[in-house]
Structures are given as C-alpha cells and as structure tokens.
C-alpha cells in the first residue's frame, strides 16, 4: 500500500535528516510536514506543508484541512518537541505531553492509520543508573530536567493507548552530527558545551571518569527512524537508537576532544586550556550556585547550559540497544562508530565557527 506520512518536528534537528530519508522511500507518495514555522519551507514533490501547531487541539488545523489530512494519513511520525533542557516543566509539558496527546487524538481520527511512531529520548531513563534496555518502560528514579520528565510522560501516554493505537516508540540518544561529513544541521547543548570547552569556559562537568557519553550520528538516527516507521514497524515496540557499547567514557570523550582541538587548531595548543575537571554532583552544584551568585553573565550563561544537561553524566548508564541492533543489522543498517565520525564533527564545528549549517533544502 502506498503510504502518506504526517510528520511533526520535520524542521528540527532530527527532521532535517529524516525528511529526505522519508521522501526517498518508494513506498511513500505524500508527506505532510506539520509546522508552525513560516521561515522554513521544505521543497520536494512529495512534501505538502501543513501549517499547524501540536500544542493546540486538532493540531491547530482548520476543520477541512484536518479532515483531508486525517483521511489520507497512513503513518504518523511525531517528533515535534520542546528540546530545550532548561525549559521549565509546564513549558516542556505544553509541547511534549499535550502535543503528544493532541497528535494521538488526531491519530484516532485517521481511518487508514497503520503506524504511529513516537520519537522519544533514551534519557526518559532519567536518574536511573546501570544498563537501560528497550523493554524498560517505567521507573521512579526521577529526572535531571523537565525535558526528560515530559518525554517520559509522553511515552507513558503512548504506551497506555497500545491497545487502540498501533504505536512504536523510538528513543534517540544525543545527536552529534552527520557521520558522512560531520555536518551539524542544528546546534544543541552538546555543541554549545564543546564550544565552551574550546573557549576555556567549561571548568567542570559532573560524573565519573567512566560515565558513558552516548552520542549518535544524525543520518543513522534518520535511517533508523525510517526503518522503525515503515519496513520494520512493529506495534508496541521500543527502539534504542544510541551509541550503546560504542560510547566514549567521559574521560575518553574529554581527552579525544582535546586532541582534536590540537589537531585542527595547532595554535590553540599554546592557550594551554585544561580539560574540564570531572566532579561529583554536589561539587558541581556548589560551583553552579557560586557562579549564579556572582552575576558574571558570560560565565553564568555557560554554567546554565552545562547544568541543564550535564548532571545526566552523574547518573552513569549504559544504554543497551541489543534488541534494536538485532533488527537494524538484519536490515543492513550498521551503526557508525563514534571514533570515525567524531573527528569529522569537531572539524566541521571548528571550520564553521561553531555554527550549524542552514537547512539544506537542496538535499530534498
């Protein structure tokens, strides 16, 4: 059957690699891109831009438009999210929980719907430590930030409707950049943190030397989502798109980064900038509190970025993708090795002065 896809979050970090992948699927004939943005208009013969907003009932669509989209849609990929780690819980819930609820209600009105693919994060595991498996759906260990909590709550919503909604949950790890060329299409906290390190504004990170730093390539994420939504779609399944056993340890990550700065910017070496110290959470927060009391805006902003997500490293966890790998390998999709593409990403960031590339419509 020919597929008509509705995707939200198509202009976000994942979406920018995912849209071309979806459009390239022979089985897909139409792609509705739900977006509230007016500045970005992806261009492809299969794409139809639908102005809407997941935070509003009926996705903010007029009745006629809603009906026509619902009638046609066979696959929903819900990726729209508030991804800021510093958002407060109400703001995060407004997009991530209410947005998912609105999308699920919409899905209930799609008579031809075959697949609902909820994009989530491996960090719904929050403050859990140890090995996190795909089948681990619930916990009560708490969360590092509102993003994690709201995405967890959204997952709970989706899984609670498993009897009525053919849904799969795709949990993504931290997206670093494209494995092929290191391109970063949208800057995120990880890129900002690397920039702070480069500019001697990252004094410390919480965690242990062994804490895994789980990163993934954006093209691998896009290919995996496409498999999860189409070829390998399985209702009730949960996927871990992550580095897994390929992750750097925190100590390795900092050292590798330092060496790549040296390699790409030989003159940088004479600055003699130290790697951030690895500290326990209590000390990290003591430093954060001190900086916040000082009123130095540059350092305060730097610390604000670090404190919004870095404490996750103080809850070391190995994200297992054993079940996911079983399926992906069967489909011929190999996970790019971090040691191969991390140098490309660092080189890209340095060559582009830490800026992400603008959206690449040409790739569509």
């Amino acid at each position, binding site marked *: 059957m020919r597929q008509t896809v509705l995707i939200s979050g198509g202009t976000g970090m994942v979406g920018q690699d995912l849209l071309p992948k979806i459009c390239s699927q022979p089985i897909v004939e139409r792609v509705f891109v739900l977006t509230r943005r007016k500045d970005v208009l992806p261009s492809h013969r299969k794409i139809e831009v639908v102005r809407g907003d997941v935070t509003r009932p009926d996705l903010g669509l007029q009745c006629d438009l809603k009906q026509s989209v619902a009638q046609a849609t066979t696959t929903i990929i819900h990726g729209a999210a508030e991804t800021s780690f510093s958002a407060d819980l109400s703001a995060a819930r407004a997009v991530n929980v209410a947005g998912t609820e609105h999308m699920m209600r919409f899905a209930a009105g799609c008579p031809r719907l075959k697949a609902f693919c909820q994009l989530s994060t491996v960090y719904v595991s929050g403050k859990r430590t140890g090995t996190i498996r795909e089948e681990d759906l619930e916990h009560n260990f708490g969360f590092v930030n509102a993003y994690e909590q709201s995405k967890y709550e959204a997952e709970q919503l989706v899984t609670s409707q498993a009897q009525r909604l053919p849904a799969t949950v795709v949990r993504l790890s931290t997206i670093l950049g494209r494995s092929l060329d290191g391109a970063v299409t949208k800057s995120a906290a990880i890129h900002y943190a690397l920039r702070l390190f480069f*500019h*001697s*504004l*990252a*004094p*410390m990170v919480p965690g242990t030397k062994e804490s895994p730093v789980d990163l993934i390539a954006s093209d691998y994420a896009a290919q995996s989502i496409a498999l999860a939504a189409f070829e390998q779609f399985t209702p009730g399944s949960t996927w871990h798109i992550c580095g897994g056993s390929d992750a750097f340890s925190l100590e390795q990550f900092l050292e590798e980064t330092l060496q790549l700065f040296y390699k790409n910017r030989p003159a940088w070496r*004479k*600055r*003699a*900038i*130290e*790697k*951030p*110290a690895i*500290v*326990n959470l*209590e*000390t990290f927060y*003591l*430093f954060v509190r*001190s*900086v916040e*009391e*000082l*009123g*130095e805006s*540059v*350092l305060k902003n*730097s610390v604000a970025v670090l404190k919004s997500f870095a404490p996750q490293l103080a809850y070391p966890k190995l994200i297992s993708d054993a079940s996911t790998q079983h399926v992906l390998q069967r489909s011929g999709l190999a996970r790019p090795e971090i040691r191969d593409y991390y140098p490309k990403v660092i080189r890209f960031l340095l060559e582009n002065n830490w800026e992400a590339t603008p959206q690449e419509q040409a790739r569509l």
Partner: protein
Amino acid sequence: MPVGVNRHLARSGIRPPILGRNVAKSHGCSSIPLHICGKIDFATASHLMNLGISAIEYVLPPKSLSVRELEQAGLLVSRAEQLRTFGFDRCYISEESADELAQRAAAALLDNCGVRPESVDLLLYAGAIASSHQIAGEHFLSGFNYPATKLQYELSLTRASVVGISQAGCMGLTYAVQLASDFLRSNGEAQRVLCVSADVLPNGVPREILYNVISDGACALMVTRNSPQNRILAHRAVTKGYYWDCIARKNEILAAYFPTATNLVQDLLSGAGCAPADLSMVLPHNVSYRSWEILLDLIGVKKEQLFAANISQKGHVIAADNWINLKDATTANLLNPGDKLLAFNFGFGLNWAATLIEH
C-alpha cells in the same frame, strides 16, 4: 608579634637534622631545576639538603574594616552579604607604604630568629602591584628608587644580592621561596635567603578583586639550608600566558582556575608519593572559602584539613597568605614535626603553584 619559630623550637629542644650536599649528589639529583613548557619541578634535591623555611614574620596594619564598613565606604564591587557568604569578614588597610610594612616584617624576622644581617646571601623582594616596587616621588627618576635596595641598606644586609619579583601577582612570595631554594641548591656557600613581600593597594580603590577581599600587609621569611623545620619537599608551578589580560579574560580565568589547580596539585602529590590523605593541613591562599570547598573536593582533601580561619579574619593578603597561615598554624601549635603541608597559591599572570612542605 610571636617569637621566632626557630627560637620557639630551640626552646623545645628540637635540633635540625644535618645532611650534606653530597647526599643529593649520591642520589643522582640534579642541582638544576627543570623548566619545561612553563612548568617548574624541583621535587628532587631540596629535601635532601633540608632546604626549608626556618622562620616567618608578618605585619598587618592596625586598621581593619568589616565588609559592611567596606560596603558603606564604597570599597566593594559585590554586596557585603555576598562576600560574607564567600567567607570574608574583614580586611586590613594600611596608612603606611608597602616598603615600610616590608621593613617592619623583615626587621622582626631578623630580630626574632637571631640571624646576623650580614649572613643573608640573597634578598628577594616581591610585590604584586607596580607601586610596591618604587618609593614614590615626583621626579621620573624616582621610578628607580627601589624598596628592595632600600631594605638592604636599612637592615644592613651588606652581603646580600638583591632581586625584585614584580610580575607574578599574588604568587610573588611563593616564587621567591622557590627561587631561594634554587639559589641555595646551586650556590654551595650560600646559607640563607631572605624573602619579603609587601603590597598596599592605592588609597580608595575597591578592596575586592575577583570576589575576594584584599588586605594590605607584608611578610618576611627565611629560606635556609639545613632548616630545622618546614622542609620543602616538592613544588610545582605553571604559568599560562593566554590569560595575561585579567580584565578581558576574567570569565576564562574563573573557569580555568579549578581544572588547572586540580591537575597541578595532583601532579605535585603523585610526584612526591604523597596521597591526599597523608596531608595534615592545607595552607590556603585566602580566597573565598566557597572556592576552597570546591577545590578541596577536587583534590580529595577533607575540609577539616584546611587552615581556614584567616580567610574571614585577615582576608587575602596578596602574596603572603600561605606563609602567614603557616606562621599562625605553627604559633597555634596545630602542627607536629613531620606533618605534611600543602601550600597552594594562584595569581594573576596567570600563575598557579603548589608546595609540599614537611613541618
């Protein structure tokens, strides 16, 4: 002023161990310190010669102000309450010049430790700010009126060579101790080096630098061959010129402080075979107690090991803190022979240093 440490120890019946210079040679130790990429390492021969700090004296002005009074006088950048939470209560403000304070501290040292002035081989005079290195005068040539040579004359240090240390910020006296050790190791006849630091901030400038409350003061100490106490076991220092502009790189300096300090101290301790748990006391530079809480955790030392009392009561006496604290800890009978002490210091430039001492 308390009596000199030497005299105190002599009364206690403690005799200095005697080790000849040949001991160092027999262990294959070099008399030349290693200077590699801004790092200095002389953990080698100094302890075998019993190079150490045999006496310390310091002078603080009689006038002191609380942080509240400083705030009312417009001499703070931050709020007084904020500085109080960082561990500061008051600071000392001098109406004397830096060279006058230096002379009083050095004279007290010579008097209390019973050293003949003409037996001093070298005078190292440190000051963090430019005004500490000249006797003020109208004529441009007064820029050559050096307090160090004036001190040599006033104290009759007739045999002493005289050198000023003027571009090491709050590290001046620590560098003086290090250079004194180098000098004694490489000059077989030399017996002692008088190290002095003095700074007085210009009248009316804020008493707060990078969230630390600054005191005027002077400190003098004697680095001696065959010192009966305070043997210098090891030392590390690093200078990072990237941060030379302390105004433009203020944020980077604040961020660089902790990781560099941590690596330096860990390098010092591991090189000397000393575990953090082996330290009896940490002699701080008197910057905010909050920053010490963080650094102590980073280097794995308990907060109880920090000699912290002077942070609130004396403030940051520029280059003199570590050694004032060593003096006060000794006077308060908080130290026992053989105690391992860590003195950590930091100064604009940007410089970090750590010294391992055996009391």
